C-alpha cells in the first residue's frame, strides 16, 4: 500500500495520547495502593491528561486530511455495526471527552470519595472515570488496529499481532512521554514510568519483530492464476489498460526504491526500540529531562517510520492486475 501521511500521523499521535493517559492512570493506581504518592499529584494527572488530549486532537486533525469530504465526516459514525473505522470514529471522541472530564476532575478537585473498599483503598470519582477511560483507551487501540487486521486478503495485516503491536507501541511511546513529563516536574514517579516505558518498549520490540518474521513467511493465497482464472505457471501481463497511471497504480504501491524500503525497517528498529531504551536507561540514572525528551522524540520519529513500513509492506492482491504498463 502507499502510506498516507495523514494516517501515519493519526495512528501514531493518538497512540501517544492513549499511552500517556494509561501511564497517568497507572501512576494513580500505584498511589491508590500507596506504593508511592507523587507530589502535586492532581496537577500532574490533570495537566498530563490535557497533554494527552493535545496529542489526540492533533491526531484527529491529521485524520481529516485523509478524507475527500471532511465536511461529511459526521456520517462516518453511522455504520458501527459492521465497520471498525466507524467504531474508531465513535470511540476516539468518546475517549477524548472522558480524558477531558478526567483532567477537569483532577485540576478542579471535583473528586468526591465514592466508597471505600478497605482502609487504604479509597475509590474517588477520578479513579472511576479513569477506569472507564482506560477501557476506552484499550478499545480505541482495538478499533484502530482492527481497521487493518480485518482485511483478510492484506495478509501482512490480517493477524492478531497487528492489534498487539498497535497497543504495545502506543503504550510504549505514551509511557516514554510520561517519563519525560515526570522528569520535567521532577516528580519522584519518573522511575515507575521509566521502568514501564522500558518494559513496554522491550515487549513491543519482541512482538513487532515477531510480526516482521511472520511477514517474511507469508504464502500469498492469490496469484496471477487465480486473479484471471487461467491455470498456467507462466502468465505475464503485457498491458494494464491505461498508458499513464491510475488510482490503482498510485494507491497500492509505495513507490520507494527497494534499498530505501529495506533500510527503513532497520531505521525504525533502531529508533523505536534500541535508542529509546538506551536513552531512558541513562535518563533514569541521571534524572535528566533532556534525555527523557530525547528518548521520546527519537521513539516518535521511529514510530513514523514504523507506521510507514507497516503500510508499505502490505501487498494488496489488486497489484497482480497492475504489474506492467
Amino acid at each position, binding site marked *: *500500500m502507499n502510506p498516507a501521511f495523514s494516517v501515519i500521523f493519526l495512528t501514531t499521535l493518538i497512540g501517544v495520547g492513549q499511552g500517556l493517559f494509561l501511564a497517568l492512570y497507572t501512576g494513580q493506581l500505584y498511589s491508590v495502593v500507596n506504593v508511592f504518592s507523587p507530589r502535586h499529584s492532581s496537577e500532574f494527572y490533570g495537566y498530563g491528561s490535557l497533554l494527552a488530549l493535545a496529542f489526540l486532537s492533533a491526531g484527529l486533525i491529521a485524520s481529516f486530511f*485523509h*478524507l*475527500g*469530504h*471532511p465536511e*461529511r*465526516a459526521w*456520517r*462516518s*459514525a*453511522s*455504520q458501527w455495526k*459492521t*465497520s*471498525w*473505522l*466507524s467504531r474508531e*470514529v465513535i470511540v476516539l471522541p468518546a475517549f477524548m471527552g472522558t480524558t477531558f472530564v478526567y483532567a477537569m476532575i483532577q485540576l478542579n478537585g471535583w473528586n468526591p470519595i465514592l466508597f471505600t473498599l478497605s482502609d487504604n483503598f479509597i475509590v474517588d470519582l477520578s479513579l472511576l472515570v479513569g477506569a472507564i477511560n482506560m477501557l476506552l483507551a484499550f478499545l480505541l487501540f482495538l478499533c484502530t488496529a482492527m*481497521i487493518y487486521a*480485518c*482485511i*483478510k*486478503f*492484506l495478509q501482512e495485516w490480517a493477524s492478531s499481532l497487528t492489534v498487539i503491536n498497535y497497543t504495545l507501541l502506543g503504550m510504549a511511546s505514551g509511557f516514554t512521554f510520561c517519563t519525560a513529563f515526570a522528569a520535567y516536574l521532577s516528580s519522584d514517579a519518573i522511575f515507575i514510568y521509566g521502568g514501564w516505558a522500558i518494559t513496554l518498549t522491550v515487549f513491543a520490540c519482541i512482538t513487532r519483530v515477531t510480526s516482521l518474521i511472520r511477514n517474511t513467511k507469508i504464502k500469498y*493465497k*492469490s496469484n*496471477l492464476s*487465480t*486473479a*484471471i*482464472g*487461467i491455470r*498456467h505457471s*507462466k*502468465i*505475464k*501481463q*503485457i*498491458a*494494464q*489498460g*491505461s*498508458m*499513464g*497511471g*491510475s*488510482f*490503482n497504480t498510485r*494507491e*497500492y504501491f509505495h513507490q520507494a526504491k527497494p534499498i530505501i524500503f529495506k533500510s527503513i525497517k532497520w531505521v525504525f528498529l533502531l529508533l523505536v526500540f534500541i535508542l529509546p531504551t538506551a536513552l531512558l536507561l541513562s535518563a533514569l540514572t541521571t534524572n535528566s529531562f533532556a534525555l527523557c525528551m530525547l528518548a521520546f522524540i527519537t521513539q516518535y520519529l521511529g514510530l513514523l517510520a514504523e507506521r510507514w513500513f507497516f503500510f508499505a509492506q502490505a501487498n*494488496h*492482491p*489488486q*497489484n497482480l*492486475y*497492475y504489474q506492467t504498463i
Partner: protein
Amino acid sequence: MTQLALVIDLNVCVGCHACVTSCKEWNTSGTAGFMSDYNPYDKDPTGTFFNRVQTFEIGEFPNTQTVHFPKSCLHCEDPPCVPVCPTGASYKREEDGIVLVDYDKCIGCKYCSWACPYGARELDENQKVMKKCTLCVDRIYDETLPEAERKPACVLACPTSARLFGDVNDPDSMVSEQIRDNGGYQLMPEWGTKPANHYLPRRKTNITIHHDELTRVDNPLNKERQLPMPGEDEQTLDDTTSW
C-alpha cells in the same frame, strides 16, 4: 433473489477497448457527475474509469496465447467493500444485487478500495468520492429506451458479443446457461467474495475425424446400387460442371 451481472467471454474478446470507451462515454455524461481526466493529451495522463481491458500473455513463445481481460466491479454476492464503509455510502441493492456508492454520502476515505481484492474501485480526483461500475443502473431500467437497449453500455458496444448481461441467479437465464455450458468461473475464489460477474474461459473447438468418415459409408446409394458410384479416379459430375 435477482443478481444482475456480466458474463465475459474471454474466448471471443479481441481487446478492442470498445467497452471501455462506451462505458466512459455513458457514465461521464450521467447525472452523477463526470469521470474526471487529468492531462488527457499530455505526459502522465490519468483519469477515472469503471472498466479496463488488460492483456496477458499465457505460456512461453512459441506456445503462447494472448488473453484480453476486461475488468470492472464484479458485484460480489458477499462484497467485502460494503461492510467496511463507515458512512453507509457503499451498499448492495436488495432488489437486483448491484453494488453502488452514494456519491452524496461518501466521504472519500478510500477504505472500501482497500477492502476490494480486485482493485475495482477508483477515487475520482475531482469529485473526491469513490466510483465504480454501476452496471449502468441508470440505463437498464430506463423505460424511455427501447427494450433491447436497456443493457449496460459496454454490453451494447462489444462488437464480438463477448459481454453478456443478465440475472445469474435465474437458472434459466441466458447468462446462467452460458456459465453452465461453457465453464464460467469467478475471479479469486479464495476470498469468498462470490463475485456475480463470471468469465468464460478460452476454449479450443476440436473435432476428431477418423479416416472412414471421409467417405460416406452410410450412403444409401451404396446399398441400393440404383446408380453406379463413379470410381475414385473417374470423372464425376462435379468435375465437369463446377467451372
